[in-house]
């Protein structure tokens, strides 16, 4: 049964990967990538790496691809099909790049990845040989232990990279005027506990204008439709 599943899922993964690069409509391209990622997760499951499989679905299919889909559905429709374009040198460069990537992956796979073939999942023992009774490699405990001992530095560096990316995104959004003062509504826990008919101290002294004072100041555009315009801008 595992063999049948493997071939079904592998075919699905390949079809998804080919579809991603060959479908003209960007939305279907993203869908094909989602299909590919889900098939990869199933392959991990067949290798008994449940944690990696779940992380694959949650992180890639669940978070990253959702954002892709968000952007593609908003800005790129079927009116702008993606296809081969660009100059001759670009196309040549892309072929060279793809060839280099292929060679690199082949080295990696032929060098180390094939060791686990023919075993029942990548069990990891003291001598690196998989045995039937071994606890499988993909359990959360073992991954957590490896991340916090052997691979601590790469793990921390990767998280810093993500943090830098997040800070950069926020900085760029602020600089481009994505967030204006006043449009940004702040909710504090106090908003839920104070009596309904009362305002806040900040509103009373005018540092945080409420709807009526803003109307008087001629800032009506942002007040009523702040939420909707903000979303349309993105």
């Amino acid at each position, binding site marked *: *049964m595992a063999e049948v599943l493997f071939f079904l899922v592998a075919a699905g993964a390949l079809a998804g990967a080919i579809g991603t690069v060959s479908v003209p409509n960007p939305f279907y391209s993203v869908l094909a990538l989602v299909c590919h990622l889900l098939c990869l997760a199933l392959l991990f499951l*067949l290798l*008994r790496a449940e944690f990696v499989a779940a992380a694959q*679905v949650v992180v890639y299919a669940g978070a990253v691809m959702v954002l892709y889909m968000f952007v593609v559905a908003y800005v790129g429709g079927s009116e702008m099909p993606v296809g081969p374009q660009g100059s001759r040198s670009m196309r040549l460069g892309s072929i060279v790049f793809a060839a280099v990537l292929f060679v690199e992956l082949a080295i990696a796979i032929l060098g180390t990845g094939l060791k686990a073939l023919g075993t029942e999942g990548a069990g990891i023992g003291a001598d690196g040989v998989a045995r039937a009774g071994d606890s499988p490699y993909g359990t*959360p405990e073992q991954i957590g232990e490896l991340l916090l001992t052997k691979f601590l530095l790469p793990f921390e560096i990767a998280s810093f990279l993500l943090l830098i990316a997040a800070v950069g995104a926020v900085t760029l959004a602020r600089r481009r005027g994505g967030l204006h003062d006043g449009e940004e509504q702040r*909710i504090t826990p106090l908003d839920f506990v104070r009596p309904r008919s009362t305002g806040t101290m900040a509103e009373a002294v005018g540092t945080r204008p409420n709807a009526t004072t803003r109307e008087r100041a001629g800032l009506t555009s942002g007040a009523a439709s702040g939420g909707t315009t903000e979303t349309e801008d993105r």
Partner: protein
Amino acid sequence: MSTLPSVLGVVDYYEPWWIQIVKSVVLFALGLQIVPIVLLGERKLLGRFQGRPGPNRVGPFGLLQPLADIGKLAFKADFRPRTSIGWLFAIAPIISILTAAAAFSLIPFGDTVDIFGTQVGLYGVDVSIGPLYLFAFGAVAFYGIMLGGWASGSKYSFLGAMRAAAQLISYEVSQGLALVGVVMTAGTLSLTEIVQAQEGMWYIVPQFVGFLIFLVAGFAETNRAPFDLVEADAELVGGYNTEYGGARFASYFFAEYLNILVVAGITTTVFLGGWMLPFGINPPTWVDPLVVLAKMMGFVFFFIWIRATPPRLRYDQLMSFGWKILLPLATLNALVTAIVVVLVDNGTI
């Protein structure tokens, strides 16, 4: 079937294949039976909350109302707009219902019991990565809503689907972080083991903040009021399912209520001690599923109560609440729990 345990990972005992099939059928039938009851309960209760009787024409006290609803939906023509994309329009509700049913199979209704000499766990599947499995199916469930809204070829549906995307991303993070505290306290990811770890004290006490965050994020994940911007009927007609009718609409509806049951069930399992009763009461084993169901129904009642009470949030309020209050709170909760767990393990406290 000999390869099945290797697919399912570390399973403590081996269940014959027919038990697994029987369990799937029973679980699906259970979900299929509870949903109409919840549906009727919701309409009745909403009526009472709003000072009107609610449905009371079909059958005694309106008890047959769900049957009439389902009959009506089942016999309606499957209409679809000319601008829609046929195959996506058709499979989107199926994705929704599949993932909801898959997540439902995760709820443990009891421990392993002996039925006619066979060890049977009173749950669909006890995976070694319980909460992650839940979030994985939640991630796939999003595509059911998104594809349905996009493939409808209607602006209302599209806007509803987009809101669903933003909302799901925003609240999934907090929901996951809220569970991290529980997982650290219990020291396991298996849901049955989490329940067993709550012997003596339910996690609602030490993890009260996590419980609140999980519940609020659960409201957002299931698109329930006051977070129901996805299907805000005043602005979007019906949100992502505007263009759906007949049996397909019924599938979406079923998936939505099944998701409510899933959130109620997971909250019960993780924070309210699953099948355990307080004060050391130890009933016979056959009571366990009823205890879980009763706790779940308590949460469902709470969901309905909340729907009748606060108004809908505005979109920017929804976003800033999710990112600026819920997420920092959930992170803080996880951090404090981690420190406390380490201190307790070292014997400092």
